[in-house]
C-alpha cells in the first residue's frame, strides 16, 4: 500500500514537472485533488467577480495542477463560508476568498466559535476603496452640497446599501456620526442591486466600491462626491477624501485569500507561491488599475498582524453602530 502511494506521488510529481515547468514549488508539495475555492459571497457581487477573475488567471497561466473549483457560500454574511472552511476535513485543499465580513461576522456572531487567527494566511491581493455616489439628476456635485441636502430633508434622505453591519453601512454610520446626518438606510441583497436602484433613482445615494459603479460612472449617470481612501484615487483625481475634510478615517474592503485552519506548512507555501504569481501577473495588475483597487502586499506574518488590527478596528466601528 505504502509503496503504491509513494510510487503514485512520484508519478504525479514527475508528470507535473513535464507539464508545468514554470512552477518553482517548495518541498514538492502539490495538490492531489481539486482545490475547494470557497467564496464568502453569493454569485455576482464584487467579491465573486474578483474570485472568478483570480481563478481564470490561474487557469489561463496553468498555475495549479488541479483546478480551483469556485464554491459560493455567501449565506449569513459569510458565516456559512467560515463554518465550511474551518470544519473541512481536508485543510490542504481548501482555501477561502475573503472580504471584510471575515472580521465582522465572527464579531457579530460570537456563537459561531470562529477564531480567524487560526486561518492560514496566503495572500493579500488588494484592497477595495469606498466612494460616495449620487445620481447626476440630483444636481449635487460636492460633498458640502450633499451634507446640506441631507440635513434639509430631516431624515427623509434615502441611501441604499448591502445591509446592517456590512462594509458600506459601517462607512455610512461613521459619516452620519461625523457630520450629524440623519439618513434612511435601505438594505439590498447585493452591490449590483444597490447600483441599479441608484441608477433608477429609487434611492438618492450609495457608498459603493468603484468596480460596482464604474459602468454608470462612465456613462455619466453617477457622480462621485467623496472617497474613503487614504489618498485621492488615480481614477478619480478630483474626488476629495474624507481625510482632506479633516476626519482621520479610511475604509477598505480586503480582497485576500486565506487557507483553512490546520493547513500544512508545505501546502501553505505552495498556495503562497501560486497567489504571488497571480498577484504579480499582468492580468491582475491590470485588473487592480481598471477596477480602482489598491495593491497592499503583505507576507504571512504581516497578514496575521493586519487581521488583529482589523478585528480591533471593527470592534470599535461595530460598537459605534450599536451592535
Amino acid at each position: 500500500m505504502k509503496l503504491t502511494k509513494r510510487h503514485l506521488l512520484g508519478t504525479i510529481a514527475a508528470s507535473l514537472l513535464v507539464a508545468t515547468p514554470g512552477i518553482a514549488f517548495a518541498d514538492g508539495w502539490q495538490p492531489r485533488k481539486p482545490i475547494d475555492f470557497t467564496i464568502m459571497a453569493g454569485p455576482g457581487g464584487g467579491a465573486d467577480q474578483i474570485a472568478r477573475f483570480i481563478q481564470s488567471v490561474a487557469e489561463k497561466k496553468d498555475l495549479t495542477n488541479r483546478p480551483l473549483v469556485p464554491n459560493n457560500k455567501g449565506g449569513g454574511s459569510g458565516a456559512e463560508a467560515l463554518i465550511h472552511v474551518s470544519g473541512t476535513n481536508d485543510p490542504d485543499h481548501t482555501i477561502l476568498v475573503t472580504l471584510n465580513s471575515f472580521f465582522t461576522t465572527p464579531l457579530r456572531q460570537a456563537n459561531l466559535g470562529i477564531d480567524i487567527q487560526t486561518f492560514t494566511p496566503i495572500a493579500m491581493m488588494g484592497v477595495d476603496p469606498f466612494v460616495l455616489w449620487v445620481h447626476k439628476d440630483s444636481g449635487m456635485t460636492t460633498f458640502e452640497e450633499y451634507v446640506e441636502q441631507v440635513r434639509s430633508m430631516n431624515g427623509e434622505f434615502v441611501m441604499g446599501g448591502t445591509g446592517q453591519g456590512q462594509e458600506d453601512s459601517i462607512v455610512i454610520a461613521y459619516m452620519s456620526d461625523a457630520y450629524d446626518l440623519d439618513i434612511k438606510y435601505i438594505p439590498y441583497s447585493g452591490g449590483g442591486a444597490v447600483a441599479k436602484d441608484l441608477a433608477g433613482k429609487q434611492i438618492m445615494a450609495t457608498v459603493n466600491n468603484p468596480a460596482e459603479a464604474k459602468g454608470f460612472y462612465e456613462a455619466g449617470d453617477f457622480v462621485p462626491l467623496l472617497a474613503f481612501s487614504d489618498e485621492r484615487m488615480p481614477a478619480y483625481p478630483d474626488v476629495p477624501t474624507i481625510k482632506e475634510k479633516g476626519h482621520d478615517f479610511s475604509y477598505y474592503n480586503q480582497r485576500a485569500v486565506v487557507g483553512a485552519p490546520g493547513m500544512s506548512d508545505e501546502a501553505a507555501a505552495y498556495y503562497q507561491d501560486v497567489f504571488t504569481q497571480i498577484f504579480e501577473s499582468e492580468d491582475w495588475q491590470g485588473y487592480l488599475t481598471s477596477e480602482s483597487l489598491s495593491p497592499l502586499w503583505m507576507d504571512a506574518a504581516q497578514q496575521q498582524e493586519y487581521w488583529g488590527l482589523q478585528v480591533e478596528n471593527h470592534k470599535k466601528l461595530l460598537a459605534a453602530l450599536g451592535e
Partner: protein
Amino acid sequence: MRNGEIVTAGVLALFSLYLMWKSTELPVGYIAGQGPGGGAWPFWLSAIMLLCCGMIAFNWWRGTSPPSQSSEPVLDAYGWKMLIMVGGGIVGFVALVNIISMYGAIAVFLLYYVKYLGRHGWGLSLSLALITPLVFFFFFEGAMRITMPTGMPFTDPVFNVLYEIIY
C-alpha cells in the same frame, strides 16, 4: 386514513407553533416608521398555517375531505414494506456517501435496488452499478468540475488515480 388525517394535521400544527415560537427571536410586530420587523413575515405566515390546520381538523370532524371519509389504512403491508425498503435504501445511500464516497454509494445503492428489489439478473445489476458511477465521475468531475464527497481517507488512492486521469 381517517386517523392519519388528524394526526398529520396535529403534527403540522405543532410544527407551525414551533415556527411561530422560533420567529419571535426577532421582532414580529409593526415597527412604526419602518414596517414589519424581521420575524413578522414567518410569524404571521406560521399563524396562518396553524389556522389552516384548525380548518383541516374541522373538515375532518365534519368528514368533508376525502381522506377523512376513507377507512383504508394509510399504508397497507405492501406500502410499509415499500417505504422501508425504498425509503430506507435512500437513507442508507446518503449515509454511505460520507464513508465510501458518492460514487461508491451510488454503486452500492444501484446494486441493492436493481438486484435485490428489482430482481434483475447479476449481469444487468453489476454493469449498471459499475458503469453509472464511472460515467458520473467523468461527467461531474471531468467535464463539469464539480467535486463530489470522497468519503473517508481510505478511498484516497482510488481517487488519486482517477484525478490523475482527468486532469
